[in-house]
């Protein structure tokens, strides 16, 4: 029973960081294990934001050797960046094990991302012109404070509060998932996918990598594969309802779009609010009310419903 939430402002920016935090905090009871955000700032063409983690939160309890291990892994990331000719414009520590890079790079970011992840224990959480993906153990307020999300301005975002059922409580199994190695695509999901292994093997044969055993990662890879092959987001979401089995509701965000898809059983909830300049959605109405306390009209999408909104 995870909680998902998303919002998109049409044609304007807003304080998406604090809005998403309010929504996800209201969904804490649906999943207290971990919280994640994929928020989209104003895109800066040419510059890439890369969010990377070099250890799991649990690893930090290992004692004095950790500091050296972290330093080695960060040095390995820096070496690969230099090798690919990426210029590091900014490098910030969000936590001891999570970093935010601003890069200027005009080569193949996908090849660079694959090279970076060859380093032991290193996982790129996100890369893109606008996307910043943040996920860690704890509730929304804990994660937002640790990663300084209160001041984040952007156009749209999706988020997730996780109750671990199918895989471990750790950062690599937390949502959202970045659609590696495709820039600016992220996914959050509430549900269970029953043909996970079959579809995962199919995707692996097509050359995609999986970092976790979490079924939600499959959706990110599935959508990314379609987008890379010229399929529109809406068509990909529609196709997924036929090809992916199970009960699910999931949200996908790209640089300037936000989409939702609901399975054929409509077994996982989503409440939608639409106005001319803001669309907000969440597993429960209480999350939408956290940012819109006034009386508003909301509704539940039906089975097999797919919607896509433009920022």
């Amino acid at each position: 029973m995870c909680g998902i939430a998303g919002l998109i402002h049409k044609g304007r920016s807003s304080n998406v960081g604090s809005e998403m935090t309010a929504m996800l905090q209201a969904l804490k009871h649906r999943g207290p294990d971990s919280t994640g955000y994929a928020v989209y700032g104003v895109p800066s063409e040419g510059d890439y934001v890369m969010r990377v983690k070099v250890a799991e939160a649990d690893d930090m309890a290992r004692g004095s050797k950790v500091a050296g291990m972290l330093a080695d892994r960060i040095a390995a990331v820096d070496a690969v960046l230099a090798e690919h000719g990426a210029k590091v414009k900014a490098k910030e520590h969000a936590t001891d094990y999570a970093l935010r890079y601003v890069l200027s790079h005009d080569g193949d970011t996908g090849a660079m991302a694959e090279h970076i992840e060859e380093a032991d224990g290193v996982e790129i959480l996100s890369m893109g012109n606008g996307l910043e993906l943040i996920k860690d153990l704890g509730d929304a307020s804990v994660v937002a404070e640790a990663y300084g999300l209160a001041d984040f301005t952007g156009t749209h975002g999706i988020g997730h509060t996780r109750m671990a059922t199918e895989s471990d409580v750790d950062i690599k199994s937390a949502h959202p998932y970045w659609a590696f190695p495709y820039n600016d695509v992220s996914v959050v999901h509430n549900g269970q996918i029953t043909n996970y292994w079959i579809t995962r093997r199919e995707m692996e044969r097509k050359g995609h990598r999986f970092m976790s055993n979490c079924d939600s990662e499959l959706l990110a890879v599935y959508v990314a594969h379609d987008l890379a092959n010229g399929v529109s987001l809406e068509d990909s979401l529609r196709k997924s309802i036929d090809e992916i089995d199970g009960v699910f509701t999931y949200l996908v965000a790209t640089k300037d779009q936000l989409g939702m898809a609901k399975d054929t059983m409509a077994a996982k909830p989503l409440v939608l609010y639409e106005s001319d300049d803001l669309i907000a959605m969440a597993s429960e109405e209480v999350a939408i009310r956290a940012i819109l306390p006034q009386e508003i009209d909301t509704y539940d999408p039906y089975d097999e419903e797919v919607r896509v909104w433009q920022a």
Partner: protein
Amino acid sequence: MAGVSDAELQGMTQEERAAALGMMTEQLTGKSMYIEFDPEATERFAYPWAPDVDFNKRAEIDAAEMSTKEVNARIRELMREGYGTVVLHNPRGKHSLAVGILNRLNLIIEGSIGYFGVGLIDGPNVRINGRVGWSCAENMMAGTVVIQKNAGSTFGAAIRGGDLVCRGSVGSRTGIDMKGGTIIVGGDTGALSGFMMQRGRMVVCGNAGKNLGDSMYDGTIFIGGEIASLGVDAVTADLTDLDKKWLTRKLTQYELMPEKGVDHFTKVVAGKQLWNYDNLEPNEKKLIL
């Protein structure tokens, strides 16, 4: 309130207690079945322990800064003080509001509520000037609930009695496992509505999603619009004059009467090919099917 005290109830056997509370049972083919009323018994409108309330005494609650538990406790406290009309402001999508009210009460909710709202109620008249989340009025036993906007999935799951009305559209699995009462929807309903329905009536003025009435045992569904598909063992039946009169009365009462009347409604009932209650031997079963 006709007087059976708690102390008296505690001293009774299970059977005596059931009779004292107006719940009569009779033996039918080896199973204990609930019968609707006993002509000898005096009619009972409330539980013995339910406080007397005056509908003209009105109280207001602002739920903005209250937890669900506090709101529900406050409603009970007001009923004990004799308030018969309670207005709840700023519910803001909270879950499980106004559950388990076993008494007469006029409850007006000014705003939208979350999951499991007004569940397990027996008697109150509830008006919700907003939207409701999943499983609204689950297991409702008596009373009326009228919702002005849309409702989520499993609307009126397992209701046993009373009238549950949504003026907007509702989600999937509406009236799943319903065992009595009436569900009325002004708009559309989603997939698997009336799934495993056992008794009662469901009226949907708009369209119905796929697998309508799947595996229903009994009961009746009336659909005013299109039906995406019928579920296993659900079949259409002819609308009788009695059905039309009943539909006209109920829809007029809740101001949901379509302009073109009720003649266009499709009636859906159980085909009863899946019934397997009696543990008959295969040969005997063939005779029936």
